[in-house]
């Protein structure tokens, strides 16, 4: 199948960059919204390059940033009512507490394929523009707006 003009430009970028995986080379840059993340780990399972992994620590301060109306927001509201002071640092997460693990993103291993964006059920992983010469990011963002890639 012949490459589109955009695909050809990205392929040229890849050739210039040489072998190896670089952030965003395959078409999108991953942007994280930690306040929306529920730590389900689907992005970790979906990531083909191992750029995402799950942490053994959870920062309670992340709860307070969760939007109201979500399960995390309700949890934060309940915790806020009984809290005596602001959360003190991250807490260890037990083995079977799968949904409270932080997600670690290693930008150096990210290929920008967007698999994590498709896998994310809450929209906590989103796509941002890629810095590629000759591509109008404004037009690209407008075209991609509303789509989940």
């Amino acid at each position: 199948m012949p490459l589109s003009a955009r695909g050809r430009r990205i392929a040229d970028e890849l050739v210039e960059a040489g072998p190896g995986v670089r952030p965003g080379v395959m078409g999108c840059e991953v942007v994280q919204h930690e306040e929306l993340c529920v730590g389900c780990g689907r992005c970790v399972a979906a990531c083909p390059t191992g750029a995402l992994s799950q942490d053994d620590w959870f920062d309670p301060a992340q709860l307070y940033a969760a939007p109201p109306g979500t399960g995390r927001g309700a949890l934060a509201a309940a915790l806020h009512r009984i809290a005596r002071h602001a959360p003190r640092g991250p807490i260890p997460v037990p083995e079977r507490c799968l949904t409270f693990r932080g997600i670690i993103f290693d930008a150096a291993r990210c290929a920008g394929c967007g698999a994590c964006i498709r896998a994310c059920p809450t929209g906590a992983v989103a796509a941002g523009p890629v810095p590629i010469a000759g591509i109008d990011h404004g037009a690209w963002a407008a075209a991609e707006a509303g789509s989940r890639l």
Partner: protein
Amino acid sequence: MSPVEAAATVAPDGEVAAATDVCERKIVAFLCRECAYSAADAAGNARTPLPTTIRTILVPCTGRVSPLHVLTALAEGADGVYLAGCLEGQCHYRVGNLHALDRVAFVKALLDAVGVEPARVAMFTMSAADSPRFVRTARSMHETIARLPRLRRS
């Protein structure tokens, strides 16, 4: 100030636990249908006296209880929350009680991080036939909560 007035002044602050104040406390107990609820039912049939602070909630499995349930109970008026499920390795849904154990450990760490006593939350395991253990755990939880001040809410 008379002793009665003094008691009325200190009680709302929760610093001093008067005898009447202890009876007004609420402890929410999430009981698993397969084991702990049967044990509680047997204790009830035997007319064993239980602490009046305990409020039981039947759940299919302790694995159903999420940190949100526990924190909501605390935020809405409970002074303590405990889960009672099957013995380890005997969960009727294989690993529900193990998930619950880890979630309780997580909630304890979360409470500790914001300055609330972790002892307000606990998890016990028991077999369906062990109603004396249900009574013992209910009384021990009641005593733990009676020693703590009332939970302050904003």
